[in-house]
């Protein structure tokens, strides 16, 4: 099992998730973050930390979201690890409000 970042994260990039990960397994590109399934220890700490509910345990993903397991695996291998919080992308606050959070 692992935890997976889904498309809710796109264009938001509050990196609250990164600050609570005990093993630094978040990776990042211009769009969003990805969890490295090889390093994730399933602590679940990032789930409540994400203000937009983008992170889910793999076993709870609905069928149409299952593809994110593979995307996280692939993109985590291709992108750099991120070890501390970034400034949110412009528009992140509006997106958070639009999502009603």
């Amino acid at each position, binding site marked *: 099992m692992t935890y997976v970042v889904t498309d809710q994260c796109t264009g938001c990039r509050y990196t609250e998730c990164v*600050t*609570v*990960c*005990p*093993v*630094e397994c978040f990776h990042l590109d211009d769009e969003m973050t990805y969890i490295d399934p090889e390093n994730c*220890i*399933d*602590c*679940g*700490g*990032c*789930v*409540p930390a994400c203000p937009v*509910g983008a992170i889910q*345990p793999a076993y*709870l993903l609905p069928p149409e979201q299952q593809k994110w397991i593979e995307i996280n695996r692939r993109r985590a291998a291709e992108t750099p690890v991120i070890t*501390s919080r970034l400034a949110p992308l412009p528009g992140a606050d509006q997106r958070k409000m639009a999502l009603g959070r």
Partner: protein
Amino acid sequence: MTTSPYRIAIVGAGPSGFYAAEALLRTGQDLAVDLFERLPVPYGLVRFGVAPDHPKLKQVTAVFDRIAAMPGFRFVGGVEVGVDVGIETLRNAYHAVILATGASLGRKIGLPGEGLAGIHQASDFVGWYNGHPDCRDLTFDFRGERAVVIGHGNVALDVARLLVKTPDELRHTDIARHALEALAESRIREVHLVGRSGPAGTRFSAKELQEFGTLENCDPGVEPGDLGRDPFDPPHDADPERRMAIGLLEGFSHRMWEKGKRCLFRFHLHPASFEGYDHVGRVMFRRMAPGEDMERELAIDTGLVFLSLGRRSAPLADVPYDGARGVHANVGGRVGGEEHGVPGLYACGWSKRGPQGTIGTNRACALDTVDKLLADLGSLPSPGADAADDLVSALWKRQGLRLDFDAWRAIDAAEVTRGRALGKPREKFVSVEAMIDAARGRDIAC
């Protein structure tokens, strides 16, 4: 000109102590960190709290080992601050001291009969099955058929799960041998997990609850009479995690009892007293479920009770204590706070903010404390250049050996070897003497 590096002492080698060391050593400043730990073994509650059947979480120790390998890091094991060395002595030998001592004391419940035999702190049971040297001589009476766990958090779930798992489900974990043997003889068939709130008000995390649906010889259940009106309606502001947990409990309420054991989730029960002669025989509760017009008295017969009501930090001599929060008194990690602060003294982890969050929460917490420390560092008085090294040498000389990280590596290797023969990831040494003997396998006498 030689510039002496800043010397920082951290007290407690649990997650928050390691993360504080990492945050300091990553600054690029010329500084060195001594991590003091009362036991010869590191990792705090990752070794002695996290349940043995959650091995994946324990992989976080690989991160701590990487931190231990950073230049400027030193592990000083077997030294209890406040006993073997005073906090003032430490403050005089270092620029700054960070307390990361955790929360080792269980909270009492404050009810009549609390002192009866058979009533235990969950933290003692956890320490016992995890082989903590302080807990190895405890005994628990598993001869009855029913146990009661009071408190609705994840530690209570760990306690209940360990009580209902089969020996085969535990055999290949790093559970202490004495615990595996005693639990294999257990006659407990029914565990009541009791809390004051309803299904929507627990602190269970969904992942931990979900495991109860997958146990080999135990069914989860809910006592219908406890529930009251609309028990499984999530509050409107519930996050997805909470909704999931409530949904799981609702699922449990439809389960039949088919397997050998049962774990009953009980709600809206307020403990009133413990009854029995020298040994507890039953626990009295008042039930106040929403929508019921009157409060009911209710008894659960049991000879084994675990209190899982949270933890607080052990006070340290010469360190101000916040009795209400159960932590070293601090404002944002500065001990004592803004006006009556103790200069150069800081806190992080559970001894700063109390027992909440996951392992990684301590990382953000330690970073925050280290930010404060770095802001103050220039204004703190400098100890003598050799003060820290002299102190550590003297402590080790007094012990007659050097319990550093290499000593831990020797203990670790010996534990893994012992475990291999039993098909376990490790068989822990459960006494400090045995740990030291294993460490002596290497040449660490000084």
